[in-house]
């Protein structure tokens, strides 16, 4: 169960029940965000380090807010102007940070597997905030959370993921999470951006965007990632917009109350048309708000991990109550 995990590295590793337990916990934190004082003392005394070896605005801000809303102390680290530019290795950087008494590490890195490497080498909990083209689990979780809030369920949902699937860690985390929870996922995009044998992930590949959108409950539009492509995979942005861009005309093929999502930042007029981005179906800003709640849930659940050998101290009892029926609070010892 997630409460026994030290790290969150990807949705590939999680069981369906663990994903559901994160989503349920996130709902409580979503309520906290609407309070007059949107802050709880749960992680008081813990310190989180946000290590960003790759540019990020919203993910970094979202994690920082989540940590602060939980009363954790936060420290930040960016590659520019740090000792990484002086030649320090990832492991040494991390060990130094750990020597400063950090409990949770949030890491974004260009190299797939960098968070896994840290997780193996540190006692601190590690959260993957995006590793190259591999996974971005908290983005996947917040997408799934938003879908569940909007559509009321995940099992049986028809989700279309449109765009550059090959270079998208968001797509990979979405696919792992959604298929585990029983959604049916269809992907579409330029053939150069669809990974070979992607059907093995349990998704369908549509021949065209129109085919993928047909009857969809959710359309999740991926960003064209110019920075992650070494070669040009399509002739021009204008052609991409014409063949693969989501317009309100195209959206008519989906369910009438379709939910439109985008992980941001958007290339308006390329993968998503202006009127779709700001339209009635768009939940793009809702995703951003939900992201804080989902990250609070992940931080809260991982903070409960105890390293092997480190036993929970005997605590003075709160009201001792044996529980009957299904308990919602744990036994207070």
């Amino acid at each position, binding site marked *: 169960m997630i409460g026994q995990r030290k790290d969150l590295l990807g949705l590939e590793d999680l069981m369906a029940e663990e994903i559901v337990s994160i989503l349920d916990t996130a709902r409580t934190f979503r309520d906290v965000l609407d309070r*007059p004082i949107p802050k709880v*003392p749960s992680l008081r005394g813990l310190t989180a380090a946000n290590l960003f070896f790759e540019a990020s605005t919203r993910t970094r801000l979202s994690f920082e807010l989540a940590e602060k809303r939980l009363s954790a102390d936060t420290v930040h680290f960016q590659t520019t102007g740090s000792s990484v530019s002086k030649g320090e290795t990832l492991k040494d950087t991390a060990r130094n940070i750990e020597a400063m008494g950090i409990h949770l590490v949030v890491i974004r890195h260009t190299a797939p597997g960098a968070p896994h490497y840290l997780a193996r080498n540190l006692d601190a909990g590690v959260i993957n905030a995006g590793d190259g083209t591999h996974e971005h689990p908290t983005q996947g979780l917040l997408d799934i959370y938003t879908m569940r809030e909007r559509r009321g369920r995940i099992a049986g949902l028809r989700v279309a993921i449109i765009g550059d699937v090959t270079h998208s860690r968001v797509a990979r985390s979405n696919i792992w999470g959604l298929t585990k929870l029983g959604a049916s996922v269809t992907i579409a995009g330029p053939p150069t951006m669809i990974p070979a044998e992607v059907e093995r992930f349990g998704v369908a590949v549509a021949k065209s965007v129109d085919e993928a959108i047909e009857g969809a409950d959710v359309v999740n539009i991926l960003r064209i990632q110019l920075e992650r492509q070494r070669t040009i995979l399509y002739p021009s942005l204008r052609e991409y917009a014409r063949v693969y861009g989501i317009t309100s005309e195209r959206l008519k093929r989906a369910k009438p109350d379709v939910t439109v999502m985008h992980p941001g930042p958007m290339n308006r007029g390329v993968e998503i048309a202006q009127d779709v981005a700001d339209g009635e179906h768009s939940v793009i800003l809702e995703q951003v708000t939900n992201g804080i709640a989902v990250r609070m849930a992940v931080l809260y659940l991982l903070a409960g991990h105890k390293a092997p050998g480190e036993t929970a101290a005997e*605590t003075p009892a709160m*009201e001792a109550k*044996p529980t009957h029926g299904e*308990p919602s*609070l744990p036994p207070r010892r």
Partner: protein
Amino acid sequence: MPPKASVEQVREKAEILDGDGLRRAVTRIAHEIIERNGGAQDLVLVGIRRRGVPLALRLAKKIKEFEGIDPPVGALDITLYRDDLQTIAHQPVVSGTDVPCRIDDKIVVLVDDVLFTGRTVRAALDELIDLGRPKAIQLAVIVDRGHREIPIRADFVGKNVPTSRREVIMVNVEEIDGHDGVSIGEML
């Protein structure tokens, strides 16, 4: 991820209140709340999850019966405010706080089944104060079993039961446990 049902085995020793006894205690507390506050104006009842919630609903029903005013009822999940999060084995499940109205300038009656160390109430007070600025906060419990670890007392008590630390007080409510009553047990 349901938490383990109970860490220790408990042997029930005696019934302190039966269903009727519990009902009478709730009725008396409802009268006392009205008397203390000169009516039911501006009252909000907030139950501490889990058993405080059905008890708060019952108190509200009685108050409506006696005064014709239906006070709002909320539920408080104090999990995120516990003072032992760093020392328990893994994070408890949070089921959410749900207080349906603003509590600013209201008289909040906090309701729980058992008052023991006082730590739960301490956490609940912190959470309430984050939700707003009530005119007053009062505490109603069905059983006060002693052994306070912090200076907290109840304004309304169903029954004072002197206990040893090895003993366990079980307040059972129909809504959760299938029957009403209060009994005392012993950890084995």
